């Protein structure tokens, strides 16, 4: 389905995840974050960058991976993206929701 955000039309699935990463931009990211009541800070951008890097390398995301990332620890990750950090950060980063159970 289509969604208009930051004066741009983007493709999303029924859960609101972007289906075309090429449509992602920082402006769209800020608006998606705003919809999740998240105000982007320097640290948020660092996490988004880390997530994109993992996605580009086709490495799966997990909470254990966050622990080892060297970018952020688990406590900070939960406080930056309250209410489910992996699903919220990936939604904002414009990549598919992780399928992992751990």
């Amino acid at each position: 389905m289509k969604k208009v955000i930051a004066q741009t039309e983007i493709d999303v699935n029924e859960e609101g995840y972007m289906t075309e990463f090429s449509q992602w931009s920082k402006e769209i990211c800020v608006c998606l974050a705003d919809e999740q009541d998240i105000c982007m800070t320097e640290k948020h951008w660092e996490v988004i960058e880390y997530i994109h890097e993992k996605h580009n390398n086709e490495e799966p995301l997990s909470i254990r991976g966050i622990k080892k990332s060297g970018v952020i620890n688990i406590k900070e990750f939960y406080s930056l993206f309250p209410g489910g950090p992996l699903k919220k950060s990936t939604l904002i980063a414009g990549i598919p929701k992780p399928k992992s159970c751990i």
Partner: protein
Amino acid sequence: MGKTKVKKMLFILSKATIENAYAAFVMANGARMEGIESEIFFTFFGLEAIQKKKLNHLHVATVGNPAMHMPTMLGGLPGVEALATKMMKKEMEKLDMPPIGEFLEILSDSGCKLWGCKLAVDMFHLKREDLIDELDDIITIGDFYSRADQEGTHLLFI
């Protein structure tokens, strides 16, 4: 976002075989990842999963476990339990499942509360320092039930 009416999950872990401990840990961690509150109450033999000296030596149950698909007598032979445990740990490592100690750290950092059962701690003559540093406290079952006083709370015995 997936929608659920579950707001809080309370787990009671009473056995510290690998399969039981991981069932509780994966579900408690999964709850936090979905934005659901979660807590684990370690009681009876479940306490072994939070004892510093024992948590790295948990085993998979080879006796009386129908999923093992081996005769019960065979499961009791020397070395069989250790071998099955080793094989299980290898498979879990392939899936990037953390070892028990690291999993407890992850749970604690994720905001999952970890509780020791007072009655069981007394029964096994354990001290606070025998248990992991991440433990939130040693509480009674009454204290634990009072933590369920909220809409959308579920209790699960493992």
